[in-house]
Structures are given as structure tokens and as C-alpha cells.
């Protein structure tokens, strides 16, 4: 846990669009799972930085994981940004993908939070 009120950054500064760095110092990527009927599940990935092209990510991920999926747009997810939704329990795989430097996004593992059982 970092100390919240001893940050050096200016909270009133505008977030720059390229990196989104100012805005996302404490932003986590949440990977969640939801049960559907039977043994079926959904995996939702929330908070992938906007510098990535979500559509492209989805396209690649669908191919690798052999599952279908959609992007839930900003309006539909009620202010939680674009959410990638995949069919089945893809939590571990998507985490690996997000971290992986070669064939993934190369994100920091600490920014990813995997929820669920």
C-alpha cells in the first residue's frame, strides 16, 4: 500500500492523452469473472489504458484464446470505460497476455487485479 496523500503529482493537472500517465497512477486493470447458466462464465477486463486499441486487442485475444468476446462501450458500461468481455474463464490467460512483453501489452503486473474465486 502506498501512502495516498504524499504523492508528488498534481491531481488538478490535465491528463495527457498519449500516455494517460497523470490520470492513471493508481488505476488498476480489473479482471473479473461472472457466472452464467450452467458451467458457463464470462470474463470482463476493465480499465485497459486508452493508449491501446481495444478492438485490436480483442481481435488478437479472441484468436489466441479461441473464444468469442465483445467490447462493452462506454455508454453501456455506465462510466466504467470500455470493457472487454470474453466468454469463459480467461482470467489467467488474459493476465498473462497483459503482462507478456513479446506477444502482449507488456503491462506491469502490479496494476492488474484479478478478482473472483
Amino acid at each position, binding site marked *: 500500500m502506498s501512502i495516498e496523500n504524499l504523492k508528488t503529482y498534481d491531481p488538478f493537472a490535465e491528463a495527457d492523452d498519449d500516455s494517460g500517465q497523470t490520470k492513471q497512477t493508481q488505476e488498476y486493470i480489473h479482471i473479473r469473472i*461472472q457466472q*452464467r*447458466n450452467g458451467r458457463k462464465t464470462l470474463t470482463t477486463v476493465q480499465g485497459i489504458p486508452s493508449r491501446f486499441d481495444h478492438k485490436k486487442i480483442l481481435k488478437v485475444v479472441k484468436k489466441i484464446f479461441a473464444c468469442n468476446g465483445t467490447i462493452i462501450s462506454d455508454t453501456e458500461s455506465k462510466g*466504467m470505460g470500455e*470493457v472487454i468481455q470474453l466468454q469463459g474463464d480467461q482470467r*489467467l490467460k488474459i*493476465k498473462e497476455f497483459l503482462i*507478456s512483453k513479446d506477444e502482449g501489452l507488456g503491462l506491469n503486473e502490479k496494476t492488474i487485479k484479478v478478482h473472483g*474465486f
Partner: protein
Amino acid sequence: MDAEQTTQKRASRKSVAFTDEKLVVDADGNVTMVASPNDDTKETAMSHTARTPPLSAALEAFTDAAQAHTELSAADSAPAAAAAATDNGDGLDLSLLKKKKKKVAKKDDDAEGGDEAAAPAEEGAIDLSMKKKKKKKVVKEDDEFAKKLEALNIEGKEGDETAGAAPAAGAAADESVQDGDMEKGTGIWGHDESKPINYEPLLGRFFALLAQKNPDHASTGTRSYKIPPPQCLREGNKKTIFANLAEICKRMKRADEHVTSYLFAELGTSGSVDGARRLVIKGRFQQKQIENVLRTYIIEYVTCKTCRSPNTDLSKGENRLYFITCNSCGSRRSVQAIKTGFSAQVGKRRKMQQG
């Protein structure tokens, strides 16, 4: 060997544990408690030893290294070393993900047909986490160190022999094998024993004494936090009843609502509380799954991050923030509010909305 035993003991220890079978009282006889402490260690992804490596972790690494070394020299086969490595991994609690990764790496190794040591191959794998890498390095260094130590010992012995001052009893005994009961003061621990004791048993002795003299030492972490295991019953086909939520909450000193909302947020479902204060969760969940969620809850909202004591209070501070106040060390830290995050519409509702 002393060291080996302590390592194993340490490996099976865990910060958050669920009590054993005998304490569980089944309501309907449906629930059977299968989790033994050892199994738990392999399943859990959360351990405090991994987060803040205390002194004990250092010792662990050291003894592990020694173990690995002996095994290497004995068999000199890659699989054995790999097995040792996985065993050692328990101390650092690899998550399932990493284990899987590891298997893949091993397979690759096999595919190459290389019967080399497993360590370099694993280092070659991309996705092993930092934790893992660190561990590997430590092991290696210690290995070298141990080799050097041994070499020094051998030199010393030769020197002794050339000097012609070979001790009567210790001549036959290998320098590297140092036996004896520390408590009774026999063998190398004898009062009038003048032979230099190796670093490893000395270090072991230090920690044994430390644990002995300070039973409630925080960094030793011998006491694990125990709560009764959750009892899960199935109601019908689609609902799960979490029977002893109230009891668990009482033990953790947390409000039922807080735990409930956390459970719902993590499991991505909803539910209600029935007449007997049991929690009814929508969806099928196994006891193990609930256990995992409870474990993360305890780590996030119950244990004190400073002294790791579970004796804490959760209170609402000034600005709608929740604070955890530790009763044993007095530290205070803010915790994040429980957020449900995005949850997709599942089931009939979605169809209704669209259609």
C-alpha cells in the same frame, strides 16, 4: 537433517489458515472438509512471506539452497532439481498461473531434447514473475557459496591432517556432516567441542533460539490466523448457502454487511440473507472458492500490514474512507472501499432489454 525439517515446517505454514476438520460441525452432513494445511499452501496465492521477506525467508532461502545443492550433487539430474525447485516454491507461494507457466517451460526443455539443468531453461521463460526470478538467483548464488564453503572446509581438513594434529574422534567424520542435538548439547553442540561449527547449523540454531525465546515474535509468523472454514450448502440448483457467515464475521470482527458486499463484488453475483442469518448467494460456488475469496478479504481488510496481526478494527473515518486500526501495534491505514466494478447483464434481463 535439522535444516530440512525446519524448511518443511516452514513451507507448510501460512498466514491465513482454515481450521482442521474436527472443528467443523456439519449442518446437513453435506460439507466435508478436505483442505489439509499442506494442500492449502499450494492453492493459496497470498502469503505474507512473499510480500515482505522477513528474516525467516532469508533462512528459508538459504536452507533451500543447501537442499537443492545436496540433491544436485547426489543425482545430478535435471528433473530432480526441477522438483526441488517446485517444492521450494511453496515457501514463496506461486500462484496457479506461475505453476502452469513452469510446466510449459519444462515441456519446452524436453522438446529440445536437452537434459540440461532445469534452472537456465526456466530463466529463459519470459513470463515468470519477478518473485520467482529473485528466488532462482538467490538459490544459485547460495549454491556457489555453499560450494566455496565446502571447498574451504576441505582445505582446512587437509591442513589439519598435514599438520598431524588429527583429532581422535572427529577424524572419521566428514566435516560437512555435523550432527548433534542442540537441546541436549550433544555432538557438535557439546560444551567442550572445539570443532568449528558450519554456518548453516549456526544460523539454524540462531533462529531456533529466536523462536524459542520470543514465541510471539511477529516476523517468525509461527501462528497463523485461523477461522472456521466456510460451510457451503447448495440450495436448489442455482443458489449457494453460506451457512456460517455470522460466525466467521464475528471471529474477524467485521460487519456482516461488509463481508457480504465484498463477497458479492468478488464473485460478481448478488444474494440475500435468509432468516437464520445465512447468506444466500446466487450461482454455484464451492467451498474452496469461497475460501479463496475470504482469504483475500482477510489479507486486504483484516490483517495489519505493519505487524500482520489480525487483531484490527475497521472503522469509517472522516471522509467516507475506511480505516483499519491495529490493536496490537497501533498502526492505522486506509483501505479501499469495496467496488463492484463492471458487471455484465447475464440471463433473461439482457434479452428483455434488447428485445
